[in-house]
């Protein structure tokens, strides 16, 4: 086992275990904390793959932004001692069947398929390349999606302010 493999196993074990805890924990804030661990481990995977920029984005936006947002809303909507209602057994079973069948199908397919092995060795992605790609308009340029996403974020920001604002009536 190489170092990479060990690290990968640690990260993916954290991801899987804490994912399961996220969806089964009966204390909602714990679920959110476990989600944080999952997301941080995902960032670890990105670091492993030398996508440093992406990993930092993942940490800032997901771990630092979305999870904090979720925790905030939890603080606003639930009490400390409260435990989540247990789902009904039949519901659980049905969901489990659907998820397990899907997972089995996908994993089976993945294992069946022989992915080509690329021979090109790549170093880390330089931040310059990312910046240039993000602002160029040619092929492999992402200026348009970048603009679109900016507008989307603006719209979402205004929209959520308007929705969450207290009405005067």
């Amino acid at each position, binding site marked *: 086992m*190489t170092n990479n493999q060990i690290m990968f196993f640690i990260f993916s074990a954290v*991801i899987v275990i804490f994912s399961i805890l996220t*969806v089964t924990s009966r204390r909602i804030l714990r679920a959110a904390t476990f989600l944080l661990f999952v997301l941080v481990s995902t960032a670890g995977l990105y670091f492993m793959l030398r*996508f440093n920029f992406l990993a930092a984005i993942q940490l800032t936006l997901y771990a630092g932004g979305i999870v904090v947002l979720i925790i905030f809303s939890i603080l606003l909507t639930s009490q400390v001692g409260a435990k989540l*209602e247990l789902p009904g057994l039949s519901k659980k079973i049905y969901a489990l069947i659907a998820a397990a069948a899907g997972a089995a199908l996908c994993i089976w397919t993945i294992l069946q398929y022989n992915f080509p092995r690329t021979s090109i060795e790549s170093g880390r992605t330089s931040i310059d390349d990312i910046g240039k790609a993000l602002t160029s308009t040619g092929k492999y340029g992402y200026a348009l999606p970048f603009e679109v996403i900016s507008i989307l974020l603006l719209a979402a920001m205004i929209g*959520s302010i308007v*929705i969450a604002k207290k009405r005067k009536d």
Partner: protein
Amino acid sequence: MFEGVPLNWFLITATLMFFIGIYGFLVRKNLITMLMSLELILNSVNINFVAFNKLLYPQHLEGMFFTVFIIAVAAAEASVAIAIIINIYRRLVNIDVENMNEMKN
């Protein structure tokens, strides 16, 4: 080729995460936990994108940019969703998805 770790491993991790998210989405009643399940699903997709990008087409950056955009969309989605959830909470004083049936009938 990322030394020692084949693509399949990433994909399997992502698949597990994805279906755990699906399971959570199906059984959780609380809207916020459903939202967290959704984040899991999105995240697993991101892992797939990144792994495909790095391990199959390392000379390009498409997967990475897709992930960046997905993260941005997820942020937008989460903010709007939470605004809605808080509004619902103000109205119904709980956020169970099964109680949201005022439009029924």
